[in-house]
């Protein structure tokens, strides 16, 4: 089982120093992360900038929604073919409205699924954490498979000025 430690800081600068120190000490990107109670500008801690594929989700959802809407609007009219005022059975303009709404709805639902998925949620075993993070403290969390590196990580955190180090 992997081990984690969490260094707690009150200011962003020492937290950024700790992140730099971990990189210099040879810790691989992805094995350490920063936890904050508020969004900071990207790269504020010299952290690994996460890549994502969120933009694919709404497009995928919209395609599904559009397909379903074409099926729903066309098939329901063809299934009960009532001629009104000598006009064609398929009422394209009315279909477009329903198709638009269903396309957008599926796009929104897929985006929300995408946000949750790309945030790596739900995560019911989130690991080491401290509730002071949502009070403005900054946490630097390091996960190891190799326990021999714990001392190195602790040394980096202490050198950067961690106010507290928690183990899990």
């Amino acid at each position, binding site marked *: 089982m992997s081990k984690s430690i969490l260094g707690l800081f009150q200011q962003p600068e020492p937290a950024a120093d700790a992140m730099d120190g971990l990189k210099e000490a040879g810790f691989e990107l992805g094995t350490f992360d920063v936890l904050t109670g508020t969004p900071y500008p990207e790269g504020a801690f010299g952290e690994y900038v996460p890549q*994502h594929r969120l933009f694919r989700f709404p497009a995928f959802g919209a395609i599904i929604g559009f397909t379903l809407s074409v099926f729903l609007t066309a098939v329901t009219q063809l299934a009960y073919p009532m001629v009104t005022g000598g006009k064609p059975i398929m009422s394209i303009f009315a279909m477009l409205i329903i198709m638009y709404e269903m396309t957008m709805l599926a796009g929104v639902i897929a985006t929300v699924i995408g946000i949750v998925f790309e945030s790596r949620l739900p995560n019911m075993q989130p690991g080491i954490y401290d509730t002071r993070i949502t009070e403005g403290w900054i946490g630097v969390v390091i996960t190891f498979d190799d326990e021999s590196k714990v001392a190195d990580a602790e040394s980096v955190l202490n050198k950067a000025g961690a106010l507290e180090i928690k183990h899990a």
Partner: protein
Amino acid sequence: MQQRRELDQVYTNRKLLNGQLDTPKWWLPTVSILGVVVLIGVVVIATMVNKGLGVTGLARPVYWGLFITTFVFWVGISHAGIMISAILRLTQAEWRRPVTRAAELLTVFSLLTALVFPLIHAGRPWRIAYWIMPYDISRGIYPNIRSPLIMDPVAISTYLTGSTLFLYIALLPDLGNLRDRTTGWKNAMYTVLSLGWRGNPRQWKMQTVGGILLSALMLPIFVSVHSIVSWDFAVASAVEGWHSTIFAPYFVIGAVHSGVSAVVTMMALMRWLWKWDDFIRPEHFDALARLLIVVATGWLAFTFLELTFALYGQDAPEIALREMQMFQWPWNALFIIFFLTAYAIPVPMWLFKRVRTNIALMFWTSILVNIGMWLERFLIIVPGLARRTPFVYTWEAYRPSPVEWTIFIWSFAWVTFLMLLFSKFFPLVPLFEQKESQVFTEDVMIGRAKIPAIVREAD
């Protein structure tokens, strides 16, 4: 931004979570009174369903009255949420921060309330499934997608689903915060609802990118919803005053006018009730009032255009309707009140900064706007049906019955009740947005003046 104060995160948590971590003294009595009103409303609705629509004032030729007016009104109010939240988020307007959550919430609860009206107006609500749900039965009859009465539920349910999801996604960081501040069953509830939120860069990035993406997706839905509601009327070619090509944009801008005014009302109440003077500041009311001046004036232009187009055709029935709307009792009195409250009183007042930054005046003027906007919908819907036309031999005057008025009052109590209930469990102001604003604030010296400036990422 001179009114901004430097606030630490512990203080922000304590102040903005005061509704969830403590119970304000006024909360329980207020919710109890509202609960009684809601209960009375539910009993009246049940009685109406049992007795039939005969207990309302609806009679030939006025089939659409107070219920449909109030339906359009609440759909209009719901436009506040996306207007404020999405547009301000996309434009990165700094003053959006205390407003967005309350506005999104208003969208969700007013839409839920709006949906009740067509349902009960149908007389036999359970039969509504026959004309909106696409299901197969032995008769092979499907919903008529050519009818705006089908387009309406599709659009509104899309908007409601999207708004609810939008609200939830933006709540995630604050749910994580509440999880950290609670114990027992509340902690268990917030742990599940926050989905294991930690606040790492990936999750914050998804909040930012996802928020912008959802805003961009919700905006076209917001425009489509009130356009489709307007077509309930605009496609009815037989009713003067309804059949108008400009109804879609006219309804949308009217909805924004009433919706943003409702947000002002709500923000004033939030500031007074929860004592959030540090977060909801006069500068926010100032910004909203400036926005309202533009929106209201755009709406006035559409009102004028609608009248002009109606009269330009020199169509006798149309002219007769306008004459009735504006010059015949009691419509003329309603028309004057509508014009005064929706525009003539509030907008000139908002031209003065002293009014825009006076929260009590903003509160009352925003209420005036919504009195006017409700009357606007009433004057669009009812006179067109009530006017005496040839070959119609039943000319019942429409007088809303006590049943209709009770259900009308119920709708306001219901929305407020839901809001207060929500406020007991979830924060009404996004905490992480407030804190982000503090992170991005830097005092800049220009000459001898210290200016609190907002730093923003270029990308």
